[in-house]
Every structure is written in C-alpha cells, then in structure tokens.
C-alpha cells in the first residue's frame, strides 16, 4: 500500500502525521485510499474553478462539463445512460433516495432482507415494509420473497432491494434471479440494487442490468468520500428527497460537489479499465491470506459457506474463543487496520445483523474478523498479516487457558 502517503507526495501535499507509521491497511471495504490520479483530477476543482454547474457563464459551464464528464464515466461503469445518473453525497443518500423516492412516488411498500446495509434497511422498516429472511450465505431467500410477493400484500409492493455484494462478507447476490421472482409475482415493483461493495469487483453492466435503481459510492474504489450516485433508469417512479433548486434533473437538489464528483468520475473511469486485472491480483492475495490463516490457526472458520460466490476483496473469518474487539485491539497495536462487524456511531463493535441473518450464533459471530483488500494492497501486507494475526490469536487464547488452569 501507500507507505507514508506516497500518493499525496505525488501532488505536493504533505501527509497527515497519523499515517506516517508503517501501516497495513486491510479495511478497503470500509473505505479505500484515494488514488493519486483521482487526487490530481480533483485538485483544479478545489483550487482553481469557482463555478456553480447551474450557472450560465464560462466558469459555470466549465463546472457543468466536469460534472457531465464524470456522469459519462459513471454511466459506463454501471451500464446506463448518462441521464440516468443522479449524483448524491454517497451510498447512504443513494440508498435512502431509492427507497424513500419510490415509496413516496407510488405509495407502495418496500421489501429487503436483514443483510442489507442499514441505509436500505432503516428506510424500508420506517416505511412499514417487509424484511424477508436470507439463506445461510446471507442472500435474500427467493422462495420466501416469492411467497410474499404472490401473497395478499404482494400487489402493494413497489420496491424490492437486494444488494449485489454484501458489505461484511462480500457474498454476491444474483440480481437477475431476484428480478425473475419480482417480474413473475410483482411486475409493478422495481428492483433496487445497492452496488456499493460491488463496483470494484463485478461487471456492473451485467450484474445489475435488470435493476431499475442502482447505488454506488466513489470511496469504495479509489474515489473521495462524499460523492456517490443513484442510477435511476428511465420509467422508474421517483420523488426527490432533497428538494430545492432542481439540480440533477429535479431528482436531487443541491449544488453539486464538483471536486468530489470529478474524483468519483475519474475513479469510475479507471475502474472500468482496470477492474478485471485488479480482481485477479487481489483475489490471489486474499486467497493466500485466508489460506495462510486457516493453516496457521486452529479453530478458524470461513464465515461464508464453501462454493458461494463472493467478491475477491474480502476474507471474513470467525475465530473460536476470540472476541473481535480484543483481536482488533492487538492488530491495531501491530499496525494492521481491520474491522469486525458494523461499527455504531460511538465506534464500538456491534453484533452483526448480517451474520445473525445467516444463522450464525452470537458466540461465533463475536469472534469475527473482516480483512478487506483492495487496490492499495500488497504481498507485504499479506506477509505482515500472516505473522501478526496468528500471534495475536495465540496470545488471547493463551490468556484464556491461563485463567482456566489458574
């Protein structure tokens, strides 16, 4: 990865003190380092250009062109028309807009599984929607979904949300199969797909071709935080959540965050070119990491059942007799950044709703660890992790043994 902020040196910016230590960053599913090309593309829009894309003078037209160039890149990445791209502040806003926008436009009910990101789950629950259980891999259970949609409440359903890749486990849902069930039983409903965790790994034009609404965010694939998009395909009923000046074709008011959108566009452009090679490179590293940990440590389980398709970036493991918080504490002190389940606003680790939905008991889930790799990952990172993690696990288990024998 970028030791000590190499990417920032490239554009003449000093790194923050906090990142000057040698760190191994294994939390790409939370956020990725911004790529140097992206920083370079953004800087003029921070430093030089004052224009508001909604204006009519030269400065405004420049800004508008920059935003629309970015729109083109995002459209290529997702596989849609540029006019279908609605820029948002990120994945959460895109997910909220998808659910609330369709619910308000149609008066119908939304449906999702408990493994969805809270940015989908919360608005679905708030709108009085249904939460359909998952299978043991954390994918929405298509049989139960079919029963719901063909049942008495089925005709009121107007949105079915199914994420492409899960944010904790990386497990991939076949969105086509979801769309088949929806088309068969509830053709009035639109499929929304949160592709936030998939954009770096899957060919979205194929994966979400049947989703009428698609959420992405730039910071999961080398872009800056603060810019994402909801793709709203033609004909999908949607009422805006943010109202005001009517930007983004009246679907999302508010002056566009031009530098961040330019960064998102550049990251999308690079991703469309490099995605396949990245997936192969990272997948090899992930497999070596996962295999090495399973060989070195007893009582470690892959959370995702064998044979289930998942993104190449995530290794999700559960360690017997270990508490995630303790393991993460030791990894942190040995300069590995990783995570367990979702974090709440306080920064505390929360019991994972995704693992609970998969039927994994609370004790096992309490020992989970998510190591997520990405464009900045290196073989050295894997080597370091293969030394530090087994030692940390052994240390914690050794203490537990000393209590039992003492």
């Amino acid at each position, binding site marked *: 990865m970028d030791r000590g902020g190499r990417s920032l040196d490239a554009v003449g910016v000093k790194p923050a003190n906090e990142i000057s230590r040698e760190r191994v960053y294994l939390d790409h599913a939370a956020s990725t380092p911004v790529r140097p090309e992206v920083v370079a593309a953004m800087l003029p829009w921070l430093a030089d250009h004052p224009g508001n894309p909604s204006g009519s003078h030269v400065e405004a037209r420049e800004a508008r062109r920059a935003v629309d160039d970015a729109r083109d890149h995002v459209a290529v990445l997702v596989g849609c028309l540029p006019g279908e791209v609605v820029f948002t502040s990120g994945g959460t806003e895109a997910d909220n807009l998808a659910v609330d926008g369709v619910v308000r436009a149609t008066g119908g009910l939304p449906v999702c599984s408990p493994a969805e990101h809270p940015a989908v789950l919360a608005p679905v629950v708030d709108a009085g929607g249904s939460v359909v259980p998952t299978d043991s891999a954390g994918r929405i259970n298509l049989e139960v979904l079919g029963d719901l949609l063909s049942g008495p409440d089925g005709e009121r359903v107007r949105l079915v949300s199914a994420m492409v890749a899960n944010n904790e486990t990386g497990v991939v849902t076949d969105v086509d199969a979801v769309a088949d069930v929806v088309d068969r039983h509830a053709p009035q409903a639109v499929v929304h797909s949160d592709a936030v965790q998939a954009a770096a790994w899957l060919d979205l034009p194929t994966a979400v071709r049947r989703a009428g609404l698609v959420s992405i965010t730039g910071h999961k694939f080398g872009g800056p935080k603060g810019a994402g998009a909801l793709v709203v395909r033609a004909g999908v009923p949607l009422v805006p959540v943010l109202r005001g000046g009517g930007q983004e074709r009246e679907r999302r008011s508010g002056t566009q965050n031009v530098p961040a959108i330019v960064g998102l566009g550049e990251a999308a452009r690079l991703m469309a070119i490099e995605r396949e090679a990245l997936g192969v490179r990272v997948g090899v590293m992930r497999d070596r990491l996962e295999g090495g940990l399973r060989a070195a440590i007893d009582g470690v389980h892959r959370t995702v059942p064998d044979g289930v398709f998942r993104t190449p970036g995530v290794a999700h493991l559960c360690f017997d007799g270990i*508490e995630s*918080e*303790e393991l993460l*504490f*030791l990894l*942190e*002190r040995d300069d590995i950044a990783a995570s367990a389940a979702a974090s*709440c*606003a*306080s*920064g*505390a*680790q*929360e*019991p994972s709703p995704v693992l609970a939905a998969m039927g994994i008991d*609370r004790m096992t889930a309490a020992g989970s660890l998510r190591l997520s790799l990405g464009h900045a990952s290196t073989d050295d990172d894997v080597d370091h992790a293969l030394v530090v993690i087994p030692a940390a696990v052994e*240390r*914690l288990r050794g*203490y*537990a043994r000393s*209590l039992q024998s003492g």
Partner: protein
Amino acid sequence: MTAVTSIERVGSPVMVAMSGGVDSSVAAALLRDAGHEVVGVTLRLWGGESDSGCCAVSDVDDARRVADALGIEHHVFNLGDDFERDVVGPYVADHAAGRTPNPCVECNRHLKFHRLRHRAAALGFDRIATGHHARIVERTDGTRRVARAVDPSKDQSYVLYMLDQAQLAGLLLPIGDLTKDVVRSHASVLGLRTAHKPDSQDVCFITREHGREDFLRRRIPLTPGRVVDGSGAEVGSVEAVELVTIGQRRGMALGGSGAPRYAVDVDVSTATVTVGSANELLVDETPVEKLVWTGDRTADSRLMAQTSAHGTAEPAEVVGGPDQWLVRWERPRRRVAPGQSVVFYEGDEVVGGAMAC
C-alpha cells in the same frame, strides 16, 4: 503505611477507563504526565436511551477527544451484552423482588474490575486505572486497601468495597489524592474539554426525563399495592410496590396528620407495604449476605459500617456466617433496604462489605 499513587512502577502500560467525564480525563492526563504508557478505553455499556443521547455517543466522543488532546490511543469496548446480563437484568430482578439495588456497585464488580481487568490483562495491560475518587493504600504487610478520597464530598470508596488483593494490585486511582476543585482546575490548565462538564448523576441507564418507574414498567409489570400499619389496618396505597424503598415516607397516599410514618417492610408477593413510626424503623442489627473482606479477616470484627454512598459510617460488629451474617449496630439505626451494600471501614480504609438482605 504508604499511599499508592500513579507515580510508582512506570514501565508496563496502563489501560485507563475513560467515561468521558472530567475525573477520568484527568486520571489519564496524570498517568501520561507521570511517564506511563497510557491507552484510553471507553466502555459502551448501555445501548438504549440515556441523558447524554443514544448509546451515550457524546460521552464516547468526549473521551475520544480528550485522548486526542492528550496524544494517547483510544479504543471503545462494547460490553453491552455483559452490562445487560450482569447489571441491568439483576437491577430489574431486584426491583421485581422488592429490593433496592445499587447498579453502580454491580457495574464495578462485574464490568470495570472483572471484565475490563481481564480484557486488559489479555491485551498485555497488567494495570487498569479509573477516575474514581478514592485512594489505594499499602499496608506494612504488603496488602492493599481502598481508602477514602481526599475530597470527602466526592468519596467513592463505598462503591469499590468488592476489590480483592489481586484487583487492587492491578489498579491505579490517580485522582483520589485531589479534591474535585483541583481536578477541574487541572483539566482547565490542560485545556481539556471536559473541565466544566457536570458530574454524572444517578443511574446511567435511567434518564432524568423518563425516570425509574418508566424504565421498569417497560420490562416488568408493576403491581399496585396496599399500605398497612403494624396492626394490619389499611392506611394507604402505592402505585407500584416494586418501587418502594425501606425508609420511604412519601408517595404512599397516607394522608391525614400525626407523626410521620415510614415504609418498614415491603412484601412483593402479597403486594403489601407496612408502615411504622420512626421508632419502628430503627433496628439493632441488619442481616447481610455475599460478604467479602479485602484482606485476611474473619467475622466477629468491630468496625465502622456505612450503608449508602454518601452516608455516615457507624460503629458496628459483624457476626455469624458462613452464608449469612449480622451487622450488629452499637446504637439502633434505620433499617437498611435489602439490596443495598453495607461497607465496612477501619478509619478511612475499606476492609470489606456485604449486601443487606
């Protein structure tokens, strides 16, 4: 006898429990300034409603920002499941049984000085520190005791009576030698944002807005009860017999005039509260259970006993055992509500404690 403070044994790292209040902020600062390697942790104990917002996020933020200002590492440990099991659940069960629990004592016993201590040890920290207003003193035989804080109005030795020798050996209480004013001025000098934060009050999982009754009503059915006098005659009523505390005077619809009457007995099974005169509230002895001694000691000891966090210690002796003991008061005193801790002192030093039953 030497006071043990933060100054000794610099070297092995210290984990400081930082609540987001001024006391633990200054505790962390003092340890850092004494040369210890310090890591701050905030326990996320209660996920529900609290006076400082959902999950007490603002307290966690305060602790984090103080740690930032001090340049020390900060972590958050989510011990919500433990807190529910060991503190909130028993608190509710105690009320349901008509007892008057002290959840802060149980939180110290189970969370701070057991769960956190073991977690710290597993992570390589032999010692933890807290911002309690109390001191630790070492005796000539090498054993340690909790002693009252320098600031008597803030003394928290009462809620630390359960600490044993192993726990005391791994504990630092850096601010017990300071008055609250000095703690606050120290925080001001350091520019800590918690310098003027008000002291926390009452039970952290019960809000001022909704109160204890509301909290309990959401978890257990509360039973309206009869209030009778010593002869069995009905003289009043209560909305919830589970909320009545021994010694209580108000809220029992006693009406009338005459001498004040107090709750002297609570029987949840028959939903009956018995009231009596101030005289009838007085007892010569208090039965206790779950007795712990700080060091080597047996019952039949004469000492001072204190029955609430800010009460006065009174002379007594402890007799009996092995499962139940009696605290025999030198002078008659008010009944102690079952569930309250009775803490034993020798001078300023805690020598043990038990639970009134």
